[in-house]
């Protein structure tokens, strides 16, 4: 039953992703053309709520559901990876208009061609794993 909480978190995310239209290629296209505030408002308020929560968790040393201390792992300081990987990700995001969460959501809405994108994203992850040690960090 422990898995139910993960299933429900996913379902809720999927519903929000549909209702907020963040799964729409048009919304991503609009965002990169700076013609609509919608996506900026969503990402900005998500970070504002997230940052407040993280701050509260740290300040009051809030424990997780199992009573364990919550620790926030720092992201590895690999700035070349972050930049080069980020640019590649952005090129893909700008083209197909979907990042990984929305890809799965679109599959649920019945956009079957997104399965090609998901399969290809798995392939991209696989190829990254093969050549990761040779890439600039």
């Amino acid at each position, binding site marked *: 039953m422990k898995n139910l909480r993960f299933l429900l*978190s*996913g379902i809720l995310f999927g519903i929000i992703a549909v209702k*907020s239209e963040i799964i729409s290629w048009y919304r991503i296209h609009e965002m990169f053309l700076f013609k609509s505030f919608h996506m900026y408002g969503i990402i900005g308020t998500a*970070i504002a*709520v*997230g940052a407040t929560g993280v701050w509260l968790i740290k300040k009051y040393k809030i424990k997780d559901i199992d009573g364990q201390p919550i620790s926030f792992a720092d992201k590895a300081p690999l700035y070349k990876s972050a930049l080069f990987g*980020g640019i590649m990700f952005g090129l893909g995001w700008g083209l197909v208009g979907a990042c990984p969460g929305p890809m799965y959501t679109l599959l649920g809405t019945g956009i079957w061609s997104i399965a090609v*994108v998901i399969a*290809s994203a798995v392939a*991209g992850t696989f190829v990254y794993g093969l050549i990761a040690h040779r890439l600039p960090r």
Partner: protein
Amino acid sequence: MEFILQPWPWYVSGPLIGLIMLALTYFGKSFGMSSNLRTLCALGGAGKFSDFFKFDIKAQNWNLIVVLGVILGGYLGFHHLRYDTPLALSLEVVQDLEARGFTEIGVHLVPNELFGLDVLSSPRGWAILIIGGFLVGFGARYAGGCTSGHAISGLSNLQLPSLVAVIGFFIGGLVMTYFIFPQLFQ
């Protein structure tokens, strides 16, 4: 119910996404929608080819359950919690896409020109989906996260690498939108 069925404004959706991130944190996990791609590789036996895919798959099961939920949520949200109304898009964007030969703009969540099933009858249609997906998968792992892991979780925790990654997302997205996309759809 009326409010649920209408499209949700950004000031409702954004905070809810922030709360999902905090809920997963409270459950002892983290919010990241691309790490499951690595788990899928590992499940498919990728550990035979690279140590990058050798890890305790069972410890990542929760991630695949989140994905299953996301797919179900997409189904529920789209078929049961939504009016089938067109998107309220910026007029300028609609006109620009019209000039590029796009039709039924905003009628569906995604354009037929990229995702309609007939694109799968042309090599060009396949190429766009394959290249886009590949870049997202490769880029997310190389960068160490995607929109959820870097932009939302990482920036919420004031991580400098996440800020660099988000700047990268925008450099890539802007180059695609302003320079490459106009060449692909003239």
